[in-house]
C-alpha cells in the first residue's frame, strides 16, 4: 500500500533546519546543544513513527517538486530506505551526545555542528530518495558537507586529506551522474520504486557501461579496492567525524547506493541473466581479505579501524553481488550491524584519545584497568566483528554463508572463515593488551594491586555503552518482531518478488 505522507520529507528537513539554526543562532553553547539534541530526537521520532506502518508493508511517499521536467525531487520510505534511515537517525542522537562531549572547547564548533547536521540530512535524503536524481543530489550534498569536517583541523595534513577525499568522491559523483543520464536516456525513468527499471531490451553495451559507472561511482564511497584510498587518509578528522564517516553517513551511503543499483535500477533477474555481478563479488572478496591483512600492520588505532571498515563494507557489496535472498538479507542487515559495532570502536578510540591522549596501539597496555567500561564496549564490538554468535556480526556472517550456499558458490565460505580469523587477529590483540598487560609503571598507579580507575567522562562513555549494548541486542534478538531485521526481510521479499 502506498500512502502520500509528508514524513519522508520532514526527516531530512529537520536536520537541515537544525543546521540553519546552528549557523545563525549557534554562538550560545546551550542553544546550540538544544538545537542539536532536539533536532536529533525529533528526527528519530519521525522515523520511528513510520516504523509500525512500514512493518505492515505501507510505503510512504512524498513528491516535492519536479525541477527538471521529468525527474524531480521525491521521497519514498520503502523497507530498505526505512532500514537505513532508522540506523542513521538512531546514530545521530548518540553521536550528537558524544560529539558535544568530545568537541568541548574547540573553537570551530558552530561550523562543525552545522555541517554535521547537514551530513545527516543528506544521509536520510539518500535513504528516502525516490529516484536516482534525488539520490545523486543528496550524494553530492553529502560530499560537499563532509569536506569542512574532514579538514576541520585546518592543518596542511588535513587539507591534503580533504583534497584527496574530494577528488575521489567527486569523480565518483560524475560517474553516477553519467550513469543516471544514460539510464534516463535508455528507459525514460529513474524511479526506484520497483525491482529493476532497466530491462533486457536496452543495448547490452549500454547496460554494461551503466553498471560499471554506477557501481564505480558508489564504490568510491563504499571504499571497494582499488578505489578506497581516501578513507584511511580522511582519518585526520576529529573522532566523531570519523565515526560518522566510517560507520553511518559516507561509507554506508556508498554501500546503500550499490544496493539500490543492484536491486532497484537493474533488478536481480536482469543481473542474474547478465552475470555482471560475478566480477563484483570477486572484487568484494578480494577487498575483504586484502583490507583485513593491511589492518593487521597498522599501528595507529584509528587507521586500523579504517582498514577494518574497508573490509567490512565489502561484506555488504558481496552480499548484494551474490543475488540470493539470504545474501541480500545479510547485505541489508550488515548496514546496521557494522554501523553500531564500528561506531562503538570509534567512540572508544576517541574516548581514549580525549582521556589519556593515546592514539597508538602499542601505548594501550593495561588501559582496560583504567577504563574498564570503555574497553568492555570495545571487546563487545570486537567479538561482533569476529562473528561470535549472539553478537550482531554473527547474523551477517550466518546469512551470507547461507546465501553463498544457496547460490552454489561455496568458496565464499572460505572468504568468511579467513575474514573472521583476520578480524580476530587484529582486534583481539588490542583486547589482550588492554586487559591482560599491566599498566606501565609511571602511569597513575597508587600500588601494585589497584590501578586508579579513570574512565572517560559520561558524555563520551554513555553513547559508547549504548552502542555496544545495541550490538548485543541486534545480535541476540534479531528475529524478534518489530526489530529492524524484519524490515531487512521485507525489503528482500520486495526485491525478489517473494
Amino acid at each position, binding site marked *: 500500500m502506498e500512502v502520500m505522507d509528508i514524513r519522508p520529507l520532514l526527516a531530512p528537513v529537520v536536520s537541515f533546519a537544525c543546521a540553519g539554526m546552528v549557523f545563525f543562532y549557534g554562538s550560545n553553547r546551550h542553544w546550540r546543544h538544544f538545537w542539536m539534541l532536539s533536532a536529533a530526537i525529533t528526527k528519530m521520532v519521525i522515523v520511528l513513527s513510520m516504523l509500525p506502518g512500514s512493518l505492515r508493508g505501507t510505503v510512504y511517499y512524498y513528491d516535492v*517538486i519536479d*525541477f527538471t521536467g521529468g525527474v524531480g525531487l521525491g521521497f519514498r520510505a520503502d523497507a530498505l530506505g526505512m532500514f537505513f534511515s532508522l540506523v542513521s537517525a538512531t546514530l545521530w542522537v548518540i553521536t550528537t551526545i558524544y560529539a558535544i562531549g568530545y568537541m568541548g572547547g574547540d573553537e570551530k564548533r558552530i561550523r562543525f555542528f552545522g555541517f554535521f547536521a547537514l551530513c545527516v540530512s543528506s544521509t536520510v535524503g539518500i535513504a528516502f530518495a525516490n529516484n536516482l536524481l534525488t539520490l545523486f543530489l543528496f550524494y553530492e550534498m553529502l560530499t560537499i558537507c563532509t569536506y569542512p569536517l574532514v579538514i576541520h583541523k585546518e592543518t596542511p595534513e588535513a587539507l591534503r586529506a580533504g583534497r584527496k577525499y574530494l577528488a575521489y568522491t567527486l569523480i565518483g559523483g560524475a560517474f553516477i551522474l553519467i550513469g543516471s543520464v544514460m539510464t534516463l*536516456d535508455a528507459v525514460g525513468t529513474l524511479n526506484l520504486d520497483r525491482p529493476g527499471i532497466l530491462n533486457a531490451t536496452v543495448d547490452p553495451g549500454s547496460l554494461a557501461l551503466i553498471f560499471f559507472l554506477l557501481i564505480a561511482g558508489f564504490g568510491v564511497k563504499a571504499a571497494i579496492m582499488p578505489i578506497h584510498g581516501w578513507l584511511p587518509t580522511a582519518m585526520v578528522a576529529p573522532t566523531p567525524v570519523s565515526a560518522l564517516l566510517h560507520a553511518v553517513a559516507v561509507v554506508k551511503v556508498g554501500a546503500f547506493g550499490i544496493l539500490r543499483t543492484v536491486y532497484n535500477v537493474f533488478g536481480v533477474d536482469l543481473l542474474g541473466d547478465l552475470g555482471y555481478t560475478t566480477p563484483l563479488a570477486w572484487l568484494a572478496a578480494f577487498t575483504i581479505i586484502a583490507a583485513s591483512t593491511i589492518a593487521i600492520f597498522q599501528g595507529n588505532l584509528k587507521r586500523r579501524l579504517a582498514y577494518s571498515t574497508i573490509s567490512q563494507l565489502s561484506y555488504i557489496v558481496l552480499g548484494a553481488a551474490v543475488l540470493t535472498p539470504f545474501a541480500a538479507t545479510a547485505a541489508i542487515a550488515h548496514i546496521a550491524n557494522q554501523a553500531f559495532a564500528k561506531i562503538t570502536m570509534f567512540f572508544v578510540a576517541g574516548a581514549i584519545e580525549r582521556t589519556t591522549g593515546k592514539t597508538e596501539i602499542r601505548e594501550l597496555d593495561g588501559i582496560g584497568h583504567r577504563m574498564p567500561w570503555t574497553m568492555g564496549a570495545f571487546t563487545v564490538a570486537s567479538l561482533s566483528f569476529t562473528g561470535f554468535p549472539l553478537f550482531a556480526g554473527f547474523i551477517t556472517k550466518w546469512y551470507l554463508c547461507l546465501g553463498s550456499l544457496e547460490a552454489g558458490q561455496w568458496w565464499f565460505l572460505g572468504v568468511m572463515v579467513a575474514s573472521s580469523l583476520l578480524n580476530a587477529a587484529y582486534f583481539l590483540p588490542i583486547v589482550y593488551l588492554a586487559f591482560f598487560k599491566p599498566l606501565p609503571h609511571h602511569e597513575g598507579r597508587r600500588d601494585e594491586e589497584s590501578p586508579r580507575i579513570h574512565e572517560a567522562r559520561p558524555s563520551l562513555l554513555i553513547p559508547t555503552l549504548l552502542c555496544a549494548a545495541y550490538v548485543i541486542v541486534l545480535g541476540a534478538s534479531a528475529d524478534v518482531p518489530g526489530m529492524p531485521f524484519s524490515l531487512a526481510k521485507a525489503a528482500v521479499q520486495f526485491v525478489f518478488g517473494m
Partner: protein
Amino acid sequence: MENWPHWLVLVVMAPLVGAAVVPALSLRNRALAPWIALAVMSVTSLAALMLLVRVAREGLFSYVPGGWEVPYGIELRFDEFSAVIGIICLIGWLAVLFSVRYVEHMPNVVPDRIPYYYALLLLNMGGMIGFSVTGDLFNFFIFLEILSLSGYALVAISGERIAEMAAFKYLLMGAISSLSVLFAVGFIYGMTGTLNMADAASRLAGLDGSPAAPAVALGLMTVGFMVKAAIFPLHVWLPDAHAIAPSPVSAVLSGLVVKVGIIGVIRVQQIYQDSGVVDLAILNQLFVWLGAISIVVGAFFAIFQEDIKLMLAYSTISNIGYIVMGLGLASTYGVIGGSVHVFNHALIKAALFFAAGALIYRTGYRTLTDLRGVGKSMPLTCAALSIGAISIVGIPPTAGFLCKWYIALGAFEADQPFFGFALIFGALFIFIYYIRMVNAFYFLPPVRSEVVDAKEAPLSMLIPTLSLAALCLIMGLAGRIPLSFIEPAVMRLLNGAGG
C-alpha cells in the same frame, strides 16, 4: 495591459534615450546620475516584464514602427529567445545599483565623468535589448555595434594598469567580428534583396544556383558571433577584458554581452534552418567540438589563476562551451539545455562577479592568497560567492545543474555519448578552482590584516549579490519554468518551422 503594442519599442528606446539624458540631467548634481539610470532601468524592466507575459501567453509577436509593413519597414520581433531581455534588465538594474558605491572607489576615476559611466551602461543595455528583439538584419548590426562600442569604453574606464591594453585587444577582435557580420549582412542583402530576417529566410530557400554564396555568408556571420561569444579559439580577448573591467561591468560583460554572440548564432541558425539552403549539420558538429574544447581550455586556464576575477573570466569561456555544445548537439534536450544556460549562467556569473567586486571594494585585494580568511570578515558576500560556485560547478539543485543535466541528456539523445562524458568531466575540472577559492576564503590562515578587519559589503552591493545568489537556488528548484518556456521556440528551431 501586456497587449499594449508599444512596449516592444519602449523597451529598446528607454535605455537609449536614458543614456542620452543621464549626463544632461546630472550636470548640476553628479549624485543624481545613478538614480536616474536606475529609474530608466526600472521603466525598461517593466516593459520587459510585460513583453515576457505576452510572449508566454500568445507566443511570437512582432511590431512595425510607423506602420511600415514588412518587408518594407523595420520589424521588431519578440520570440521566446528574445526573453533573454528579462535577464538583461534584471542584471542591468542590479549592476546600476551595485555601481553606486563601486565607481566612486575606482582608481583614477574623474568624478565629473561618473555620469558618463551610467550613460555607457545604459547604452550597452539598450544595444543588447535591441539586438535581441530586432527582426531586421541591418538593425541587428547597428545594435551589435552599439553594445560593442559601449563595451570597449566600459572596459577602458576601470583605470587599472592594463585597462587600455585590454580594451584595445577587445576592440580589435570586436571590430573584426562586427566587420564580418556586416559583410555577411551585405551578402544576404545582395542575394535576396531584403533585410528582414524572416523574409530573407524564405527568399534564400527560393534561390537557385550554387549554395556557395549563402554558405560564405553563414560562415562570416558565425565567425563574427563566435568572437563575441568567446568560443575557442576566438576567446583570447575575453579574460583580460572581463577581469580588468569594473566589477559591475564584468558582471554585465560576462553574464550578458557574451550571450549576445549566442543569440546571434541562434538567429543565424533560424534563418538558415528555415531556408534549408545549407546543411547545418557540419556547422553543428563543429560547434559541439569547439564547445567541448572551450570547456576544457577555460577550466584548465582557470586553475592556474591567482586573480579571482581572471578565474571567473576563464570560467565564462567554459560555460559558453556548455551552451555552444548544447546548441550544436541539435537534439531537443541539448538545445533546451543550452538555451536555458544562457539565462542561468547570466544569473550565476553576475552573482559571482558582484561578490568578487564587493570583496575587492572592501579589502582592496584581488588574489586568492591576499584574500585568505575573508570568509570570516565578510560572511554574507562569501556565502553568496560559495552558492554561485556550487551553482556554476553544477551541483544539484542549483541553476547550473539543470543545464548540465539537459545537455548531457541531449548528448546521449543525439547518440554522441562522448560529449556527455566530456561535459561532466569538464565540470570536474571546474570544481578544482572553485575549491581553491573556498579553501582560501574559509580554511587557510589569513595573510593580510586589511582582509581580516574588512567590514561586510554595503547594502547597495549586498542586495544585488544576495538576491542573485538566492535566484541561483530558486532557478534550480523552479527549473521547469524556463525549460517549458523555451521549449516551443526550440522545437520551431529544430524543425525549421518559421523562426
